């Protein structure tokens, strides 16, 4: 019983972080119709920004917004410099459809290499703001800790903020309009290019939170080759696909589902399936329900 509860709680915490990553992938997809394979690389870079702030000021609560702002600015720059050039140069010809995929993969490689050059390959540490020792309930110790609770709370707060932004503000309206009908939005006076950059910036900030939380939820060690970020890269994409790629709510559900599923596989089947389980889940989703849980269009079928 306690094991079942633990499995679910671990899954939900990890799933919350995947949801954030999925949200950043969905935000980019909605604003530019590109799947940003560099998203985890950008999260890695932002987490290093956060680490620098930790070193200077020794406070997680300052490091987190620093990482978010750094991530947002970097993402905006990528959109302005790389994506606009890409649209200008490679939007026709035989490899037009694969050019954005290749470009974001290249960006992932560049970020990893540059991060390794600046901060070296060794682990650096980010200490979480709260203890990761489990709560005790009736004599038994859960794996669920104050830190994990905090992670869940931050994920929920961020999602609430995002949904308020999207549903209640003019900026949110512009973001939605540019995603669904860019031409009409442009005619109505929405600065679509600017809104696209904003979409990327929001995605960068969400990815930064995912990176910071993933690091403290693991063992607190951060390195350019850490397994945590390979996992973020894959899980964010899978969660977004499960959720239907268009919908923020779908991304959250996809992330949570994926987190819980992986947690169950690792606990009850074999911990050796750490990397192959997400792949199998992804294939299953693509075969059974390729439009995702929320998505309605059959966009991803060939």
């Amino acid at each position, binding site marked *: 019983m306690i094991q079942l509860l633990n499995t679910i709680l671990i899954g939900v915490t990890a799933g919350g972080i995947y949801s954030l990553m999925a949200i950043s992938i969905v935000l980019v997809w909605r604003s530019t119709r590109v799947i940003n394979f560099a998203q985890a690389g950008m999260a890695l870079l932002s987490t290093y920004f956060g680490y620098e702030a930790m070193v200077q000021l020794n406070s997680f609560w300052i490091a987190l917004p620093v990482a978010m702002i750094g991530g947002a600015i970097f993402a905006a720059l990528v959109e302005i410099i790389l994506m606009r050039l890409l649209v200008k140069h490679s939007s026709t010809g035989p*490899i037009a459809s694969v050019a954005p995929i290749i470009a974001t993969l290249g960006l992932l490689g560049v970020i990893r290499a540059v991060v390794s050059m600046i901060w070296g390959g060794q682990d650096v540490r980010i200490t979480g703001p709260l203890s990761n020792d489990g709560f005790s309930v009736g004599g038994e110790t859960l794996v669920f800790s104050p830190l994990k609770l905090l992670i869940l709370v931050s994920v929920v707060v961020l999602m609430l903020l995002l949904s308020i932004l999207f549903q209640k503000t003019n900026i949110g309206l512009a973001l939605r309009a540019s995603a669904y009908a860019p031409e009409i939005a442009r005619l109505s006076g929405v600065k679509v290019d600017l809104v696209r950059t904003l979409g990327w910036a929001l995605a960068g900030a969400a990815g930064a939170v995912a990176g910071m939380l993933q690091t403290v939820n693991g063992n607190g060690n951060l390195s350019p080759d850490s397994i945590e970020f390979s996992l973020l890269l894959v899980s964010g994409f899978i969660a977004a696909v499960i959720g239907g790629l268009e919908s923020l709510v779908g991304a959250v559900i996809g992330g949570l589902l994926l987190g819980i599923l992986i947690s169950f596989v690792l606990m009850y089947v074999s911990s050796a399936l750490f990397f192959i389980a997400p792949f199998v889940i992804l294939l299953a989703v693509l075969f059974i329900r390729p439009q995702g849980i929320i998505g309605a269009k059959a966009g991803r079928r060939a």
Partner: protein
Amino acid sequence: MHKRHNSSHIIPFILGGVVLYFISGMVDELRVYQGASIAVYVVAISSIILLTGYSGQVSLGNGALMAVGAYAAAVSHISWHIPIILSFFVAVLVAALAGALLGAAAARLSGPYLAGTTLALAIGLPSLANQFSILGGEQGLLFDVGFPPLSLGENFTQYKWFFWIAALAALIMMWLLQNILQSRYGRTWRAGRGNEVAAQLAGINTGRSKILAFTLSAGLAGLAGAMLSMTIGTVSPSAFPLALSFSLMTGAVLSGITTLGGVIIGAVVLVAIPEIADVVAHRLGSSESVTTNLPGLIVSGLLILTVLFVPNGPVEQHRARKARHEAEHNSSKK
């Protein structure tokens, strides 16, 4: 526009082999070894060009499929004592089989979905090797093609033997591939890439044609994996990192992803990058972390720059410019 290609173009490939034979006798050991690496990359890059350039599918799984081929060759040689020459065929067959399975899934996916799925595979598969004792875990397996036959003389070095095997395999593969791409299969793939619906209307089973492309491409990747292991001497998970799939993508884009002709360019560049990076890092007198990561930076940077500025590859770009120039010239004469 129906063009018949009865000739199988074997003569250039034989000539190429003769030229390589004489060159391999003239250069030093390091260059011979690099020559073998170039041959490996030629095969690996053609597998990407076939898949991405001709059939329009972006797969990052080629590194993983190379691993499949390499392990198949090593296991068949070590555990089942299959002769080394045949183990290369085993590599091709097993990887092609894996590719057919993957292709059946891939035919249902488009663009970014396929790229993401194969990315998940490329990250997951090599780590699976640690789970089975027959695959040798982190250290991997030895893959030794043995000493060159004595009949080649006593001064015939091990590296030259690698080079001969690799170059021969590459030449044969390129010749086969060239002919396949000019056959009706090649046209079918190009048609499907250009406009899938139109291709279907023309009676092409695009799903089947994609799976076929995936299978062939996987077979090539498997061969490249076995060749790579031959030059390293072992098969281990660390020989097939995600970075390998990235380098191959860079090589393919630099080669001009829609034509097979430029494939040697990409292969030479990939082999040259570590050396160039070494020289640059030495000049700058930079720290260790810069030195080890410079090749990765150059590979990825080149990938972005090529996609941005010469999306169809330098060779194709040049050819297109020349064709345009000639067209203008002709029209101005009239």
